[in-house]
């Protein structure tokens, strides 16, 4: 019954993740904690692969997790799960589009949802930070070169005019090369 569970978990993710691709991240951590289908470290790798391959991130993550859990069938089921709520909700909304946009309850709900979504992605990001910087969970395992790489990437993606508009895949591939060249896994 792994397929049924996969579908249900990703259906919930699709239904409650508001704000696009990264918004699925907190839900995936929740799935990881409850099911043990994949580890936190694997999840960080999935984000990288999902960002570096064609297609929407949220869908890519579902396909990846589904494949690791249940092969090709699992990939298909997880993907259908994550898109099913979208199809249902959008088909309903598109029937009365303008009313939905102007509804004050809808507006109010999203006024509250946006900061919550931001906060949840931040919290999930902290788990990625732990997986990335503290491989065995203690401060002693911190390799000083990793924060240096992070600072360089922050500068390149936000402040350096020539590079900040580049696609994320450039930085992901660049980081992979740096990782191999400096043997960052230790």
């Amino acid at each position: 019954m792994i397929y049924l569970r996969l579908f249900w978990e990703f259906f919930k993710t699709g239904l409650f993740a508001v704000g696009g691709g990264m918004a699925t991240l907190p839900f995936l951590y929740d799935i990881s904690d409850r099911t043990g289908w994949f580890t936190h470290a694997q999840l960080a790798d999935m984000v990288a692969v999902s960002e570096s391959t064609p297609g929407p991130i949220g869908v890519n993550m579902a396909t990846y997790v589904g494949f690791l859990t249940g092969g090709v069938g699992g990939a298909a089921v997880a993907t259908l799960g994550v898109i099913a709520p979208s199809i249902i909700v959008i088909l309903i909304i598109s029937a009365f589009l303008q009313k939905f946009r102007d509804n004050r309850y809808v507006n109010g709900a999203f006024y509250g949802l946006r900061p919550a979504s931001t906060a949840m992605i931040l919290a999930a990001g902290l788990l990625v930070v732990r997986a990335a910087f503290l491989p065995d969970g203690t401060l002693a395992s911190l390799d000083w070169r990793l924060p240096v790489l992070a600072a360089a990437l922050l500068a390149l993606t936000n402040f350096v005019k020539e590079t900040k508009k580049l696609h994320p895949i450039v930085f992901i591939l660049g980081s992979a090369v740096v990782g191999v060249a400096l043997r960052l896994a230790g």
Partner: protein
Amino acid sequence: MFAKLIELFLTFAKVGVMTFGGGYAMLPILQREVVENKGWASEEELTDYFAIGQCTPGVIAVNTATFIGRKSFGVVGGVVATLGVVFPSLVILSLLAGVITQFSELAWVKNAFAGIRVCVCVLIFNAVWKLGKKAVIDKWTWAIFLLVAAGAVFTKLSPVVFVLFAGVCGVVLRALPGAGGGKDGAAK
């Protein structure tokens, strides 16, 4: 009709292949394929769909595909366009996931991912920053942000709880006179 649906599927499969990163990355490609090449939606309609796709549950790219498909070819069109946009992901990720799992024990792959994970942290931080600028706009949204952040870090509660809590908070705050940033408080 059948030929039209095939065309719809293929067009959205093409959009799926050409979108790296989803969401915003998809907008210029949709403009070219759907508005200019096929004429299935106007520029204004596309912007509307995108805005709603962002604030409704689910993946933005999927939401937008469902909208356009439904508008042009009814409910079946909505389903076909959506399946089209996710089809490339399904094929590519299934292939890659198998390969990556097999090679994940190699030393150079481990080193590469050690570097990549650092990059992912930075990308997530940048996404949070960008979202936050539009979402955390006054004292009430700050309060929700801090409360949910603390809850997500320090408790094991399901994200569903936070989503429902924040949605209700938003409705209540907006209903209070003089609170919640006024009518135009929500960022567009």
